[in-house]
């Protein structure tokens, strides 16, 4: 049955995780996308010579996240999915950084995912086509990374989900890893066959797809059962804004410029029955403090609308 979730970033605070989870429940959510990527902040994943977040042992990390796990349980929020910190590989970074990302941050993220009892972890593919010369060679590197984690995923019952991403050319957004749905399907099937388990699935990101003009309906239809998790959010087709669906228009008729009808049709056609999860953390900071709970409630209501339509 369809449930409604949202990412925890900007809602759940370290000092009182329970309070944040209760806010989510009150707003109308039953699930969350735990923003593991928010702990080692994006772009600050590693500082040479310093103690970094994933230098902690698995036991230490579990102790750190215990209040979050308990808070979610007490508030009645299921941690449906989480986001592995990204990037997981930086082609121009020092060896030590990539070693940390690959051999510390990634496997420990899997451990934390299992600790939360979470089924899905979203993993960003490597962005290497520029350097290596083609998307196929880029995927070979991503696959090496995923293969290094696949045995853990199988043992823990976790599905790693690759996501449709983008690249920027002088500020213009173009498609990145995961935007060729046929190849994604072939790769997911091949890896799952190899491990005789659903170690790999797909996370469809509506905002990223909208930026590169992808047809939501046909993309989702080709994905079919491989679609495990969603990142639902909206933008103006120019920047990755992570805003509330139905926010943007382009014409005087003021109809939505994002194809939400196609999104609903696609999910309906594949009988999607998992979590309608919103990735809308920037909404929380954009609204004034006094309106944030209402903004969250609106997001949950939109989830309810999608659910009814699907």
């Amino acid at each position, binding site marked *: 049955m369809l449930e409604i979730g949202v990412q925890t970033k900007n809602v759940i605070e370290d000092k009182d995780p329970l309070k944040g989870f209760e806010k989510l429940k009150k707003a109308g959510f039953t699930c969350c996308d735990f923003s593991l990527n928010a702990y080692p902040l994006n772009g600050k994943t590693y500082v040479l010579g310093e103690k970094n977040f994933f230098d902690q042992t698995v036991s230490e990390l579990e102790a750190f996240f215990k209040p979050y796990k308990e808070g979610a349980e007490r508030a009645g929020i299921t941690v449906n999915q989480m986001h592995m910190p990204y990037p997981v590989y930086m082609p121009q970074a020092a060896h030590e950084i990539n070693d940390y990302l690959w051999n510390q941050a990634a496997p420990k993220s899997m451990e934390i995912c299992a600790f939360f009892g979470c089924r899905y972890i979203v993993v960003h593919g490597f962005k290497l086509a520029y350097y290596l010369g083609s998307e196929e060679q880029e995927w070979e590197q991503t696959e090496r990374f995923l293969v290094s984690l696949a045995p853990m995923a199988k043992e823990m019952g976790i599905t790693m989900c690759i996501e449709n991403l983008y690249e920027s050319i002088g500020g213009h957004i173009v498609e990145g890893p995961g935007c060729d749905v046929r190849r994604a399907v072939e790769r997911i099937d091949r890896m799952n066959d190899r491990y005789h388990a659903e170690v790999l699935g797909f996370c469809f990101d509506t905002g990223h797809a909208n930026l*590169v*003009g*992808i047809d939501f309906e046909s993309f989702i239809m080709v994905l079919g059962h491989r679609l495990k998790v969603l990142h639902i959010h909206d933008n103006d087709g120019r920047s990755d804004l992570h805003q509330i669906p139905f926010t943007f228009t*382009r014409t005087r008729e003021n109809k939505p410029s994002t194809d939400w009808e196609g999104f609903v049709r696609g999910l309906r056609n594949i009988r999607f029955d998992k979590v309608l999860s919103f990735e809308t953390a920037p909404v929380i900071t954009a609204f004034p403090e006094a309106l944030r709970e209402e903004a969250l409630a609106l997001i949950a209501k939109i989830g309810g609308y999608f659910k009814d339509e699907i």
Partner: protein
Amino acid sequence: MKKVCAMAGTIFNPEKPKQSIKELKEAGIQGILFDFGLIVSPAGILADRVSEESKWKPNQTRKYYKAVISQFQEHALLPSIVRLPFVDVNLNLNEKTGYSYVDLNRLVTQIDADCVKACEEMDCHDIIVQPLSAGLKQEELWEANKVFYLNLAAVCSNEDTKILLTNQCRSHNGHLLRGVCSDGETAAEWVDALNRACGMQRFGFCLDVGNCNICGQNMQRMASELNSRIQAVILTENDGQNMARQLPFTNAYGRRSTMDWLSVIRGLRDILFDGYLILETVDTTVAFSPLLQPYLMPVYKEMLDYFDLQINIEKDLKKFDRVALFGAGNMCRNYMKCYGRKYPPLFTCDNNPKLWDTEFEGLMVKNPEELKNLPEGSGVIICNIFYREIRAQLEQMGIVNIGYFNDEYMPSFYTDRLKRNTDDAEDADYNEG
């Protein structure tokens, strides 16, 4: 490579093209894409019919474009390739419009068939035809287009005539998304199915990189999926949002073009593209004062030559039995990383005497005078941004076999760290092109 400029991009007055033809010829541009869209518009005809004005009537347009073509014949510049009238993807018919999508598609079919006959009459055999999409649902597209294109094929009387499908955007409430034929694999299936139905290679594809750019598409992959079906490429630039037709490299921000030319060039190289390169720049041209527009023509000529050079970057390397390089800097280094194994140079040379008799990227760096002793059939490849100066220097030395290398769009880009991180033999080949 057949290099042509789009008619609309070079400001033709279709009825009086003499001046434009003269300027094009003076700039060294020998080919044009003739655009029937400047002469006839199906939506315009229907709109006029509804408003009871008489400017556009199908029976008059044929007379009109025949007159235009005779002007081109008179000035000895026959179109190399033709584009039939397009329907605006933003066209949104409603009850007030007074005509339906069915009316529109019927008229498009009629006009396109008429234009195909006109193309054959002027001995032009490559025709770009927009797929039907107005008012059609996703699931209706293939069947409607199959009938449409096969109807056009039936009109063709010359076996050399090629009908080129082309990739389109679609408008979702003003936001341009991927439209009909924008998926390379599906488009390739369409072309193949149409050719099978015809029993001959009647159909091909024209890749419009402007439309790809609006949808942020990976054009390298698109090219590889369509492969030899691509017989024409429209080179144009836009801001990724609006369907503008600008000169390549002019939509710049942060000191670089915002268009993914790397993926275009890699893709066209991968498929050994050798068809029509069509430069379409109407928005750039018109933005200039008419007083300045003639000065754009030589730039257009150089632009087409530049893309030819980039796409055929290996052409000069293949031309000679052996090569020596001129330049011992980054460009030489990139040559060795990407092409050194496939086209191993005898040595490199440099004007800096301090570098003579040293080794660089596995090559001996020699005095340029040594180039005079190259074996017969050898060529000198300039690996330095001072192309013109070095060419002049070589010509002064009596060397005639001269080629260019350029490392702006490499098959791969070298990263020391990437190489250092890898630990098996397979990985060691990453930057070898």
